[in-house]
């Protein structure tokens, strides 16, 4: 099967790539652009930051990002309350001309985890305002159910805290969410550090992954982007192929019948 015959549908839009990529932390804008291209990503995340008058509205990296022509997913990184997130979301919609939003309301400076209560409050309001909300959330099943009930059509539980690269801290919780929300597109966002982590996310039945640091801070970001592109294909294809069941005891692969010499053993 080809990626094309296994499309990913988010909010009614169809994508071939199952890797969403961040645009921050790269050694240079050109390396960012090359990495995005190498990754095959069709959706990339962006943000808004205060602009000093003097700079005159110019931002080099934003020019590189815009020229990539990818579907943009603005985030609300740095917001600490529902009110801030809702306001920043409206600013994003105006300037990026999209109602897609990666909702991010940080609840703690230590692990940068989503604030479950504020994220839910913001999600309700943003859905009311017509946004297509992709919430960055924890691996809490009940919170995920509440976000779905609030009108989120896609959920993005974390694998591990942002930028740690620790992989899937709690595969059991992630699997519970998958089995309880079988129809909902699920994306592992944050914590993925190596291609094997990405493959694990797909093996759990997750539909896509969103990462940034693991690519941007690799020794060779463009090469790592290609590695994750393969990882997404390996993971998704392997999931569809149906992995063997793990066994407790060994079982020969080569036929046992007709093994030579056995009579000498008797």
């Amino acid at each position, binding site marked *: 099967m080809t990626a094309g015959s296994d499309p990913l549908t988010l909010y009614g839009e169809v994508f071939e790539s199952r890797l969403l990529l961040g645009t921050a932390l790269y050694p240079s804008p050109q390396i960012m652009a090359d990495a995005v291209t190498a990754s095959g990503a069709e959706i990339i995340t962006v943000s808004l*930051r*205060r602009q000093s*008058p003097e*700079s005159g*509205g110019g931002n080099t990296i934003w020019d590189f990002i815009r020229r990539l022509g990818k579907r943009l997913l603005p985030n609300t990184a740095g917001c600490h309350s529902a009110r801030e997130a809702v306001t920043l979301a409206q*600013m994003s919609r105006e300037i990026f001309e999209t109602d897609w939003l990666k909702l991010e309301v940080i609840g703690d400076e230590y692990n940068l985890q989503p604030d479950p209560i504020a994220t839910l409050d913001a999600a309700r309001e943003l859905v009311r305002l017509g946004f297509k909300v992709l919430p960055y959330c924890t691996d809490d099943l009940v919170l995920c159910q509440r976000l779905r009930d609030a009108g989120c059509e896609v959920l993005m539980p974390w694998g591990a805290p942002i930028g740690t690269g620790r992989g899937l801290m709690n595969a059991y919780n992630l699997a519970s969410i998958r089995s309880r929300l079988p129809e909902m597109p699920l994306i592992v966002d944050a914590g993925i550090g190596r291609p094997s982590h990405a493959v694990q996310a797909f093996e759990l039945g997750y539909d896509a992954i969103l990462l940034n640091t693991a690519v941007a801070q690799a020794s060779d970001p463009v090469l790592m982007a290609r590695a994750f592109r393969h990882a997404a294909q390996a993971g998704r294809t392997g999931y569809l192929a149906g992995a063997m069941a793990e066994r407790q005891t060994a079982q020969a692969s080569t036929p046992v019948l007709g093994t030579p010499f056995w009579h000498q053993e008797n």
Partner: protein
Amino acid sequence: MIAVQLNGEARELGAALSLSQALEQWGYRCDKVAVAINTEFVPRSRYHEIVIKNGDALDVVAPVQGG
């Protein structure tokens, strides 16, 4: 004299200006930024009618990379 906070820094305006006038005076290009006043979003369509008041806190933001 109108004292405001622009992106967290104190600024002064000689007179009561509309938001569009203030942005122009500060040298912003309206089509490249988005604005919130006192953590409330202000759509572009209202830049002309909104008049900046003393003590307003403005956030003027532009696109950057994100994760």
